[in-house]
Every structure is written in structure tokens, then in C-alpha cells.
């Protein structure tokens, strides 16, 4: 049975402020869904809430991962159950080298997998796929990384962990065309291998490289429209305003 993520009428925000006002959507393993919307529509809030950031609050609704109550779990348990978040702004970890960070994360998320030489070989392979230099492993996590390096590092983690479901928060922003190609290839490959991806993006540019099953448009904390590839094309031509007017 493929694992799926079900978001059911989710209301959430910060302190008393409601940002998400009733979101429902489902992503199955192997599917790619794009979640688009203007700035401030609540896209990143959804990403943070799905992994349980302590600064956010859920007012109402449910999220099920493989049928289980995700919102009752701590952040680390959500990760271990198979939900990955690719951060828009991953934090620096001074003094923590990528090599150790990757290994310890991998041990937590994939305790059943070998983490010795086989893992090292996997890391090398994925570094190659993502066109990342070897010296990367000796650098401190995200410290002094360019915007593009940070995003590749997030995709690298997704590729290593092979989570059943991943939320990728604006992984495309700040990338040049070459990086966008590399990162998109990786996400397409992961989806083919069974990862369900909720791809949060501000621009439709990435949809030239990644073809989602569904596109959802988030406006003012609600999904204003869901559709296929055609919806993305329409957004490219007309922007978001026509949807706001309809809503």
C-alpha cells in the first residue's frame, strides 16, 4: 500500500493569528503536487506546520500520515515516520560537518540501513548526481553556503533518506538554470522511485522541468483552485490576481 499524506481542513497560524484557513489536500507516494501562491499566502506556514515547528499553532483540522495522526507526533517522530521537509532557509550549524550531520540524520531516519561504507558510497553517488564537490562533506552545515548550495544540500538529504513523502519549500528559488536542472532531475528521479512530493513554489519556472500531477493555488490561506498542468500555464500568463478576484 502506498503511503499517503492527508491534510484535512487544516487551520493554523502563529499565536492568535490565523494564516491557514481550511486546507485540504492529499499527496500519495510517487506523486508530485505543486503548491503555488503569492507571497504571504501561507505556503511556508504549511511546510512548518507539517513538521511541527514549535512557533506555529494548529487551530483545527487533521493531518494523517499513512492514516496516523501526524499532529500528535513530535518533529523527530514525524521525520522518522517518513515525512521530509526541504527548508527554504535551512539554518547554519557551526562546527558540525556535513559528513557527520548526514550520517547521524541517516541513522535516525533509516536505522535499519547500513551506515558504514555502503552509506559512504551512496553519499558519493548522490554528490555526483547533484554535481556537488567532494569537499562539501568537510564543510560546516550550511555555513557560508551560497543560496544554491543550501538548496542542493537539502535535495541531497532528500535523495539519501528517500522519504515516502517530502515537502520541498521553494527549493527552486535563488537557483540558476543549471542548478534548477540538476535539482529538478533529482526530484523527478525520487518521485519515480516512490517519493511523494509537495513542491511549494512561488514561480512556475520549475514546472518546465517538473511535471506535477496536480497544481494547487493557495491564496489567503485557502486553496483557491486545483488543477492540472494547464492551471500553471494560466498562472504564468495571468498571475494570481484573477484567482483572488474569483475568491
Amino acid at each position, binding site marked *: 500500500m502506498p503511503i499517503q499524506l492527508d491534510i484535512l481542513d487544516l487551520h493554523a497560524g502563529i499565536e492568535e493569528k490565523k494564516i491557514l484557513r481550511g486546507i485540504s489536500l492529499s499527496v500519495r507516494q510517487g506523486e508530485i503536487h505543486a503548491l503555488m501562491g503569492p507571497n504571504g499566502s501561507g505556503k511556508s506556514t504549511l511546510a512548518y506546520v507539517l513538521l511541527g515547528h*514549535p512557533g506555529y499553532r494548529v487551530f483545527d483540522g487533521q493531518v494523517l500520515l499513512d492514516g496516523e495522526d501526524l499532529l500528535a507526533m513530535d518533529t*523527530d517522530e514525524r521525520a522518522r515516520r517518513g515525512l521530509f521537509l526541504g*527548508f527554504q532557509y535551512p*539554518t547554519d*550549524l557551526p562546527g558540525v560537518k556535513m559528513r557527520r550531520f548526514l550520517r547521524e540524520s541517516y541513522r*535516525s*531516519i533509516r536505522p535499519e540501513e547500513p551506515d558504514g561504507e555502503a552509506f559512504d558510497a551512496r553519499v558519493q553517488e548522490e554528490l555526483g548526481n547533484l554535481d556537488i564537490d567532494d569537499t562539501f562533506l568537510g564543510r560546516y552545515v550550511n555555513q557560508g553556503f551560497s543560496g544554491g548550495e543550501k538548496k542542493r544540500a537539502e535535495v541531497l*538529504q532528500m535523495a539519501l533518506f528517500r522519504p515516502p513523502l517530502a515537502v520541498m519549500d521553494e527549493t527552486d528559488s535563488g537557483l540558476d538554470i543549471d542548478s534548477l536542472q540538476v535539482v529538478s532531475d533529482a526530484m523527478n528521479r525520487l518521485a519515480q522511485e516512490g517519493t511523494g512530493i509537495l513542491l511549494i513554489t512561488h514561480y512556475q519556472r520549475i514546472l518546465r522541468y517538473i511535471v506535477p500531477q496536480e497544481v494547487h493555488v493557495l491564496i489567503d490561506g485557502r486553496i483557491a483552485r486545483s488543477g492540472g498542468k494547464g492551471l500553471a500555464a494560466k498562472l504564468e500568463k495571468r498571475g494570481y490576481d484573477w484567482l483572488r478576484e474569483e475568491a
Partner: protein
Amino acid sequence: MVLEQETVNREYKYGFRDDIEYVYRTAKGLSEDVVREISGLKDEPEWMLKMRLRGYSHFLERVMPDWGGDLDDIDFDDIRYYLKPSEKEGRSWDEVPDKIRETFDRLGIPEAERKFLAGVGAQYDSEVVYHKTLKHLEEQGVVFMGTDAALKEYPEIFKEYFATLVPPEDNKFAALNTAVWSGGSFVYVPKGVKVEQPLQAYFRINSENMGQFERTLIIGDEDCQFHYIEGCTAPTYTTNSLHAAVVEVIAKPGAIVRYTTLQNWSDNVYNLVTKRAYAYENSTVEWVDANIGSRLTMKYPSVYLVGKGAKTEILSVAYAGKGMHQDAGAKAIHLASDTQSRITSKSVSQNGGRVTYRGHLAVAKGARNVKSNVRCDALMLDAVSRSDTYPYMDIEEEDASITHEATVGKISEDVLYYLMSRGLTENEAMNMVVLGFLEIFTKELPMEYAVEFNRLIKMEIEGNVG
């Protein structure tokens, strides 16, 4: 020292004790007779007895320092100042009494010696029980032995340097050390000799209400290079013990000397240590000083840059959990031109622990073109812990280039969230951040020590999570 300490749930794997018969011990308390008794037992020359009495006399006159940690619970009358565990300093582990050898086995010393050390010294309470240096180093003239033995074997060089950097009148605890010193390491590395592997000394307190007063004298002759490492542990008792060492390091022109300390006393030990080095022309002195145990540590490794072009790097790391106060820091005293110092302090406090950085940077009149860089970072793991910084500066030359940075922080919610989103528990995430914070220190350690240090820090953090 019959203070009942609050039971601390620190997970401390070195807290075991041995029940041994001492060869000799003085009665509790300190008097001129005790000082004479110790000197007599050691069959010392007259000048040393005089030096001890000078220390004792100053100890009586000097008031307790009130500017640092709380010393009120030290009861000098309840301490035993000299405990002799074995007849002689063994040259092989077979010559060390069984129980004591077993202790050092448990501490992993013989194993480390076989694997990667150039020489080992082991002190148990008041005396050095074992000492050994690799043969090829001895042949090159490297001397590494107990300080008492060195006084007998190298009396001239000993007299030339002993108490020249830290005179008996330096401070109350240096005075006490001078009066009752016993054991410690004596190191002499001849001109031009490079010792690749570290020389390791290990200091173990075993007895309750014990005072350990080792005296270490290290001389690096011109253009030599070596690394001296010391470690220390003690059993956990409900009463307190006192450790008051004095260390003097001389780096002659062109010498490169590194001195690393991994202090992991049990949390009933007062650790009040004076460490000082003189760096002559174009020499380099590196202090790498980590304090992760003790009830109270007051220790500020100091370097006097006395020769033109001398350099020093001082790295001070402190961790304080429940019931602990680390009052640590560094001093760089620039007395010559073109000298450089870099002081880096990293401290972590948790569960009510307290850390204090106390530093002194001085540039004397006439010391031109001095460069100094001081950086202090404090990490507090919760709201009940405490961190203070006291950086003193006396700069008497205008062309000195001095930078000072200090930060105090806690682990941010976003960092924990990021790590937990990678499947790490909150504790594992906290560990990773702390080890990263201290990485500037661990990367300076030989690999075996770095692994052990990281393991100890993890244990401390887990034992102190509220």
C-alpha cells in the same frame, strides 16, 4: 571539609574508588611540621625546604581570594596534605601495586600508551607511581619523569627554573602548592628535538579529603617541538577534595610547545591551579585547556611573551552542569615587540551550572607592533544557568592591534527544529549543537582524545537535562 553536598545526578564513570593501604600519610591539617615532614620524607636539599617554608609562610599571610568562585567550604584543617601510595616510581606497570595498576587500566592509560604515546606519567594521590618514555626519545636526551625524581637527578637545571615563573608569593594557592608540593611532571626536551607523539601525564585522586599538589616544570630548549597532555579524574565523595597545582613552562627561542589539559574531576573537587609560561624569542606556546569537571575551577593559563616575535594561542573550554562553577580564562602578557596572542574561550552551562570567563590582556610600554585577538563565546542550554565575562585589558602602546569579541547565546528553536526534522531527538539535537560549538577545541586534540571528549560531553548533557 564535612560539607554535605547535594546529591548530583551527574553520570560520572570515573567516580569509583580503591581501598588501598598507603605506604605513608601525614596527619590531617597543615603546620610547619607537616611541611618539614614532607620535605624530610623526600630527603630534599636544604634550599627546597627553605622554598617550602617560604610558601607556607606566605600561605598563612595571604587572604583567601574573594574575586572569583566561592571558596568558603574549603577547610584547610580537614585536608590530608600528603599520601604516599607506593614505594617507588615504577618503570614498568608490573612495578605498580596491583590495585593502582587496575585503576589506571580502567582509565585506559596503558592501552593508550601502547597505541600512540611517546611517554606516560601516572600520579596517584601524592606520588608519581609510574613513568616511562620511549627509548629513542631518551636517547635523544628527552627527559620526562616525576618532579621529585628530577630534583634528585637534575638538581642544577631544577634549581635554575623552579619557582621562577610562579614564585611562592604569587597567590595563596601557589604558596600552598610550594609548601606541600609532591609529584607532577618534569619535562626537558633538548635543542632541536621534535617529539612527534604526545607525552601524557595522568593525575588521579583516590582518597577522601585529599589535597593533591603536583608541581610541573616543563622546559623546551631552542627550536624543539612537543605536545604534553594531562588528564585528571577522581572518585565521587560527599566531602570535598582540593587540587592546587602549579605548572611552569619555559619555551626557549624557536621552541613550539603545546600543553593540553582535559580536566574531568568529580564534582567534589576544588581545582585551583596556577599555570604560567614564558615564551622567548620566536617561540610558540599553545595552551589547550578544557574543564568539564570539578565543583569549582579557578584557572587562567597565562603566557608571558618575553621575547621578540613570540606567539601564543590559548584555547579555553569549559562545561558547567549542576553544582559546578568553572571560573576559567586566559592571560596574555606582551612584554616584547612583534608578539602575537590569540585567546579563544568557549563555555557551556546547563542545569544551574555557572561559567565565568576571566581574561587579562596586557601590552607593556615598549612592546611595539603587538597583535592580539580575544574571542569569548558562551552557550547557555537553559534559563537557570549562568555565564559572566570579565575581560581585563591594559594596553600601553598605541600601535597594538587588539580585537575582542564576545557572544552569549542559547540554542535557537529553529536550530533544534531543523535537526529534529532530520529525525534527531531533542537531546541528540542539543548534543550535536554543543559538540559543534566546541569543535574548535576537539579538532585540536589527537583523535583518540577527541572521541573520548565528545563522549564525555554527551554524557554530561544527558545527565543534566532537566
